[in-house]
């Protein structure tokens, strides 16, 4: 479960040492520290760093990796100790607070001086790294949410994978989506959840798995599909106590408790629980709503040709997904801002992002490279166009707020109780809104 990640992280702790050791030969060079969190992307990061070091023999890059939670706490303490990494992955939920506190180096002037063509990125992606009229990053990648499913599980349940394209949900009877998941929820005796003999206490395989600590890979998507707006506008108050949002939260809770087609929240609630891809890989779930950045985890866990990616179901209002992206930021206190800028410029370049796209690591920030990513996965036997189609349709971004830390904590605690069936959706959303909008 999570520990596999922890173990991987532990193993990787040695990686920067090894990298540092083999690159310390030229005396007058500059060493930059580059921090990131996702262990799925380690191979791509290493390849990109190697390409940069080949082109810039005077600059060494030291990789520093932490898992998501530890990444942000250590970044905070490193800012406080004025010893943060020169370059690091940035996330839109954290970015506004960093920009406001002036720990990020503005790069608008440098972009202009170097005459960088920023039209190679989708405009929304580029603009999402603007705060108070100043640019703080170049897009590294983008991601969206889709339905990952095991073809063999569908076939065993007598479901034609083509059905995935037309699934619909509604808050009343669950719609074809819930029925699809019921047929995939199978007890120890082989009865599915629609059978009168179904034994809900001994389930061998659940229809789906959800493991989002924020909502990004589960209820935010149902929210978009139900016409809910999480926020009135960027940096505006959270609006998740509106009826359309409460309904989306309730539908997510229903998947757990009313329909029982989801790996129970006792096993998936974050941050202690397992991840959706782990339940799919181990056969405990047939499908998962998951982010494009997790594709390589599925590739590692499942045989080639046994899994595929399809669109999310549509809701009462229509299609919808959550899109997001990362950027590379420069620490304002870096001793080598010029070298850091060279590195960030490279990370944002077509050359660097082509390396990641060709390795199937993440959807690239540079639009023209989307095909490279698609091609890599086509060769692996997976059609990933579902993510792209989703991103081109109706979507929501990650909410932007200076209160994200409060919102995240309260939302995690409240919604975990809703998924467990211990709290109703309306009172949980009210409490989240009250706390997150208060400060």
């Amino acid at each position, binding site marked *: *479960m*999570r*520990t596999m990640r*922890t173990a991987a992280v532990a193993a990787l702790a040695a990686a920067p040492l090894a990298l540092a050791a083999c690159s310390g030969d030229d005396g007058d060079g500059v060493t930059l520290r580059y921090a990131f969190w996702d262990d799925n992307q380690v191979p791509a990061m290493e390849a990109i760093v190697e390409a940069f070091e080949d082109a810039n023999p005077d600059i060494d890059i030291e990789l520093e990796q932490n898992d998501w939670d530890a990444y*942000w*706490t250590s970044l*905070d*303490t490193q*800012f*406080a100790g004025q010893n943060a990494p020169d370059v690091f992955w940035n996330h839109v939920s954290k970015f506004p*607070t*960093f920009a406001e*506190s*002036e*720990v990020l180096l503005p790069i608008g002037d440098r972009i202009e001086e170097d005459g960088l063509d920023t039209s190679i990125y989708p405009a929304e992606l580029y603009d999402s790294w603007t705060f108070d009229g100043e640019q703080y990053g170049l897009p590294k990648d983008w991601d969206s949410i889709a339905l990952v499913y095991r073809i063999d599980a569908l076939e065993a349940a007598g479901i034609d994978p083509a059905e995935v394209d037309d699934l619909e949900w509604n808050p009343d009877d669950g719609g074809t989506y819930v029925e699809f998941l019921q047929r995939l929820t199978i007890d120890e005796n082989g009865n599915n959840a629609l059978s009168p003999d179904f034994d809900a*206490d001994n*389930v061998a395989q659940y229809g789906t798995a959800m493991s989002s600590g924020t909502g990004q890979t589960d209820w935010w998507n149902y929210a978009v599909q139900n016409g809910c707006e999480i926020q009135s506008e960027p940096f505006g108050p959270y609006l998740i106590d509106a009826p359309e949002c409460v309904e989306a939260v309730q539908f997510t809770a229903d998947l757990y408790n009313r329909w029982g087609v989801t790996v*129970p*929240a*006792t*096993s998936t*609630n974050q*941050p*202690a629980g397992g991840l959706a891809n782990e339940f799919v890989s181990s056969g*405990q779930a047939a499908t998962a709503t998951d982010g494009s950045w997790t594709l390589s985890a599925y590739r590692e866990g499942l045989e080639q040709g046994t899994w595929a990616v399809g669109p999310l179901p549509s809701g009462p209002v229509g299609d919808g997904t959550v899109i997001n992206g990362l950027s590379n930021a420069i620490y304002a206190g870096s001793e080598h801002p010029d070298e850091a800028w060279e590195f960030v410029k490279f990370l944002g370049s077509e050359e660097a992002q082509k390396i990641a796209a060709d390795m199937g690591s993440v959807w690239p920030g540079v639009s023209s490279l989307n095909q490279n990513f698609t091609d890599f996965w086509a060769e692996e036997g997976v059609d990933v166009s579902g993510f792209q189609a989703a991103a081109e349709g109706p979507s929501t971004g990650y909410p932007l707020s200076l209160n994200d*830390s*409060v919102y*995240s*904590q309260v939302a995690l*605690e409240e919604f*975990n109780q809703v998924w*467990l069936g211990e709290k109703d959706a309306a009172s949980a959303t009210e409490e989240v809104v009250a706390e997150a909008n208060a400060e």
Partner: protein
Amino acid sequence: MSIPSPTADDVSEGIMSTLQESARPQPGVSDNRPGERRALHRRRRLRTTLEAYGLLAPSVIGFAVFLLAPIVIVIALSFYDWNFLSSPEFIGLQNYRDLADDDRAVDAIGNTFYYVLLNIPAQTVLALLLALALNAKIKARNAFRVIYVLPWMAMPVALGVIWRWLFDPIYGGLNTMLGLVGIDGPNWLTSSTWAMPVIASVNVWQFTGYTMLFFLAGLQSIPHQLYEAADVDGASKAYQFFKITLPLLRPAMMFVLVTSVIGSFQVFDTIHVMTAGQHETATLNYEVFLQAFTHRNAGYASTLAVVLFAIIMLITLIQVAFFRKRTTYDFS
């Protein structure tokens, strides 16, 4: 017992006089010229002093840099508003005033006391019973001693992860075994009723062996003549336990209780790994972590840390006062 035994005072007087004796100049070795002898003596004393300070330096420096300075900084920070990123802003007692309205902090204090109450009595009684059992002449005694201490040697985070698996309601070992005998096990770690007792029991399991070591050492320093004499007088085993063993174990008991109570007020890693402070398992120390590193309220987190420090200090002082009156170190 009819043979008069020396009191503690007699013993310490004896030790003192022996020490003084050895400090006196040895006859024959001493110098005849008094002035030079005094100078030599002074120089020697200076050297001894410097040597002593030199030997103390590493631990004093360590204490100052890694303990004293952080404590002073935390107390100072508790009067500031600081998000790690901008410069700290002095706000006087505002953090302490906020404390009164902070339901989470109040709950956290309650959770902390609940945890300590679950943890300490069970751990202490179990450790004592184990020590009694392993002090008796049984087969493979040493092997058992090692086995019980093993959990203490393992990393709490790693243990937390393994126990989290075992307590998983669907895929975990515990509920699978309960299922075999027809019991439908609860959702251990996501139930407000069970989560804290589970965490406490994991920590009891981890630290009982370690605590046992101190009781074992204490038991071995009790002279066996006392038990022989009690046997002659016809005292029952239970009577011997309450009248000889328990009173003479008080130094060990004091050490064990003081250190384990402090440790259990500071519980963090098991909670972080097993429940992340959810389901009413957020102790005060965990709330310090959340306030500092999730909410970026370093000032307010420091305030909570000061409160935790004050609580621990108070309880430790009470324990020390209690034991000081009732402890004898005289086993003869």
